[in-house]
């Protein structure tokens, strides 16, 4: 049976009617057409589905959308302001921290949660903040560099 619920995503409140078995990831991608969060493993291991819930990174593939109702969600689509890229996004481009891009939305959001709490992180802090995000392409070095460069802006 479909249930009525409200989700606040990137500052906008959405009223939805969904089946309760839907994960937050499937509602974001399929109901709200926000395709930034990706499904990699679907099991909590890879971080491709990372979004922010009340400012903290979570795996949206392992959370029922119903259990996220009424709470603030930020996806990668919420990072830019008026078409202007977030400093982290700009820095990822400048440092060449993107190859296939599959991990990038999750990386950006884990990095944002870090910088919101700690504006001048050490390399160790950065590595630990993205330790739940797998990248199969870059070898991480440029991602760490890009986050450090964004922190210096």
């Amino acid at each position, binding site marked *: *049976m479909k*249930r009525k619920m409200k989700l606040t995503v990137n500052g906008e409140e959405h009223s939805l009617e969904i*089946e*309760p*078995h*839907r*994960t937050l*990831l*499937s509602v974001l*991608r399929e109901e709200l057409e926000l395709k930034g969060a990706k*499904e990699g493993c*679907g*099991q*909590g*291991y890879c*971080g491709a589905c*990372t979004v922010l*819930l009340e400012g*903290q*990174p*979570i*795996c949206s*593939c*392992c*959370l*029922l959308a*119903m*259990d996220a109702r009424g709470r603030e969600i930020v996806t990668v689509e919420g990072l830019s302001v008026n078409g202007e890229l977030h400093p982290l996004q700009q820095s990822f481009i400048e440092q060449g921290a993107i190859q296939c891009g599959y991990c990038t939305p999750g990386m950006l959001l*884990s990095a944002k949660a870090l910088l919101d709490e700690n504006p001048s992180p050490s390399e160790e802090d950065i590595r*630990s*903040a993205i*330790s*739940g995000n797998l990248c199969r392409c870059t070898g991480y070095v440029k991602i760490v560099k890009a986050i450090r460069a964004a922190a210096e802006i």
Partner: protein
Amino acid sequence: MRRMPRFEYHAPASAGETASLLSEYGDAARLIAGGTDLLISMKQRLSTPEHLISLSSVTGLDAVDYDEKTGLRMGAAVTLASLTQSPPIKDKYPALEAAARKVGSVQVRNIATLGGNLCLDTRCWYYNQSDYWRQSRPPCHKTGGEVCHVVEGSKRCFAVYSGDTAPILMAMGAEVKLMSGGGERVISLGELFTGDGLRPNAVEPHEFLSEISVPPPAAGSGVAYVKLRLREEVDFPIMGVAARVTMSDGAFGSAPQGFKVVLNAVGSAPVEVEGAGEMLAGKAPEQAALEEVAQVARASVHPQANTAGTPEYRRMMVPVLVKHALTEAAAAASS
């Protein structure tokens, strides 16, 4: 996208409502706290409950309180991330903070709960797989069949309990409160674990775990949890050891009750090493005393080939980690 099976969703607002939903639906219902364990097993069709009772809206179930006389009380639905940020835990129970930090990844800890960690299902390479993968073999005991793919001919299941907060909480003498429509019962955390791979905890279908309490830290005592895993984030334990010791004037205290060593992820329940207190009490905290406990610990477990790390390697690492945990606990007690 991996699809979830369908179910009816309930989000009770109070402990009382939770209990009445549980008694109404019984075996047809499962509790969901963070869902980081349950949702994956539902995607893999290891669990297909008709009703899910979510603890996300139950008021007060995520509270943390500390009192110098009575100790620490944690609501079962507190997230592991908030445990690691809670001032009384950081201040009085730093080893619990450290153990909670060793669970999964940042993203997992932000939704995973303490109650879910204690009630974590047991794990096995032949069990935690998709339904498609599992079709290639006959069902094993844990999926309703009559064989075990790990120990040939076995009548029982050897799936592994690997919750990382249980051993340290057991070492600190934690108790858990189970609530139901009929009232509540308090048991020691050790009694929560049945040792049965098929049904690893003693929570009855009409009950739920509501609170975890830990006595105040005793003077001179120190605790530590050492975890061995493939990578320093995300991965479940290959094995773990929690230790509690009591120090007095640079030596181990004289009361055997001041000591506890608990082994994790080597069987279907955390295993307490018997006689550890007698072996350590009154001794100098040197390798010789630790070695005796380490060898008894090694002899007391029989890991199987169903998680990361070969049984031989895991068994070999038992004494190494036991000594490591005891040394860390002794250092914590002296500081």
